[in-house]
């Protein structure tokens, strides 16, 4: 299941990162979103194009296109 499909406020863990844009993938990893990272989607924007994601105690906005490439397991 990808991060964009996760229900709000449900804890999950990063299983795989399959983001096509290598630059974005590396940047997300450098921000701490690596395999095994616990995360939670706090909010989805009105048209569901952007997600508000909590990981490593910080809140980041992630586009749904990018979130599609983050494969997760429920924690």
């Amino acid at each position, binding site marked *: 299941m990808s991060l964009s499909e996760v229900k709000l406020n449900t804890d999950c863990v990063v299983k795989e990162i399959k983001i096509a844009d290598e630059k*974005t993938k590396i940047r997300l*990893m*450098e921000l*701490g979103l690596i395999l095994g990272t616990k995360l939670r989607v706090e909010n989805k924007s*009105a048209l569901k194009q*952007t997600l508000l994601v909590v990981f490593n*105690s*910080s809140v980041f906005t992630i*586009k749904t296109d990018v979130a599609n490439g983050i494969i997760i397991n429920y924690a």
Partner: protein
Amino acid sequence: MRKLLLIGNPNVGKTTLFNSLTKSHEHTGNFHGVTVEEKGKLVNMDGEGWYIVDLPGLYSLLPFSYEEEISKNAILNNKDFNLVISDANSLKRNLYLCLQLKELGINFKLLINNYNYFKKHGNSIDIAALKKYFDAEIIDAKKCKFNKNLIKFNKIDLNLTYLTQFLAKIKEKIKKSDAELIAAFNGNFAGFNDDEIAFVNAQLPALIMARYNFIDGIINEAVKQNKNFVYGKSKLDKILLKPPVMFAGFLAVFFASIYLIFFLVGPLVGDALVGVLYFLIISPFMNFLYSAANNIWIIQFFNEGVFSSINTVLTFLPQVCLLFLFLTVLEDSGLISRMAYVLDDFLTKLGLNGKAIYIILMGLGCNTMSTLISRNMSERNLKIKCALINPFVSCMARLPVYVLVASAFFGKWTYFVVVGLYLLGLAVALIMALILNKTILKTHSNNLLLEFPPLKNLDVKHIGVVVKTNAIDFVKRVFGVIVSMGVIVWILSHTNFKFMYTQEIGESMLFFLADKIAILFAPIGLNSAGAVSALIVGIMAKELIVSTLSIANNAQSNAALISSLTLAASPVHFTTASAVSFLVFILLYCPCISNIAVLKKEVGGFYTAFSIISQLTIAYLTSFVFYQSIQHGIWFAAISLAIIFTILFSVIHLTKKVKHNKCLTCNKCHRN
């Protein structure tokens, strides 16, 4: 002289620390990417000069945007001393950058800021444990002083076991030295061929994970953190992140602020300020001139060229202060990140992203500053688009013109005219973004990777300092640029081609030249030399438009200028239709000189020329529609708009077709 760099992630307090260390008042804000260029100041300590440099924030040495590139280059070129500022609330992520610096052998001292917030939420840092790995110290960036203790540095050699393993693994494939490989891990591939670069890049995900494993070891030893602690989350977010609440709240605050700024508090204080100035300086000086000089041109020069420029522009000082108060409150509170998130859906449809809202809001203050901020966009086309639409946003320099000209013709409706101009500018900016996205500047990678800061209580002292700094800058500008340019305008409008003083303004060089091109402006109702000369002078700085009008009409106060604009006998006068046309043209026509210079630096000569030409065209067409519609009725507007939109859609369609044809002959992208 030694150099001291302030390095760190975005929004950790680097500029706050810079201001404390150097006693400066550089722009700070509770938002990602407020600082977009290097800022430095020389400070003396015990007879030694230290050049302290505040760098734009960066998360990693692999840059994601232009401002991160600037910081990276500065770090790699610095041979002296570095301070890494870290936020206690996101220490793990901040240590990632520290680790990259350690890998490269760059020495630094780690300063941990914002610890009180971290501690208040039940967390703690064992600084002694952290000191085993980094020369670390907890600070309060607002109160930090530049002294020997701050730059006292203990070198700590870290045993980066993961790095040794990686180097060994890669050396099996690539014959390079350790230094070359470590540089390559951090994006410097000098001397590497394509296969080697691809191989190193393929190792990056594993390297990043190894770095974070190493950091986890440090964090487990040195940090005790409440399991549920989230930095950047607020209870109010449940309400604020609902689009209707955000939209309605923002519009209500914005329009109420405009009313307060321009029609209630502003004029009262402005008139009082100019009254005091007139009583204390202008009146005694002019009395002295009348008694001492019997030369009419000297008296006129000071009266019209110098004092009327000061009078008409300085009246708007309170409005400028209130506008910056509004923007600073938005910036410091953390609301801008929320707005960026909520508006991202809508802005993405136009080919922008949520971060563009920060550029638009800053544009309300100064277009030049917000053009510079566009560099924090991660994608080239996105950055260029933001820079190109930015001049359509009404900056504070255009305000005096709106208020004065609208007051002359619309009386109690002035407020709505000014609000209408703001909205028109915004609408044109957004339509322009959409057209650019559909034609020459399509956004290819729209990543809104934005960190949410927490909502903060407002620091009244800091807001006061920001408003005071901007007020001083405005006054300096009035007495510097505006007065000196006002003097030049006065000379040009009172000197004929024989370089003789003339009281007949129609014979002056400025009005003679303006008169020659005024015919071009006849279709938009601005065929008077006075109006055209104000437009020409406005390219230098928009504030000069009002001072040019007051010089031309010999008006000593705003009230006199307002009444003179409606009199047919005045050198510059308007009808209601031409006044609307004038205001619309000023709203949309080309950026000022300083903005043009920044545009050229940021987006290059081609797009700067494009910006000037497209803005002039759009301003002319829009003014034409407004002027002719008022003259001939609403049907004219409907037909004109239909023609303009047909042309626009044809251009978009044609551009798409040309691009599609090019695509068929190229196999460089996935579309084929």
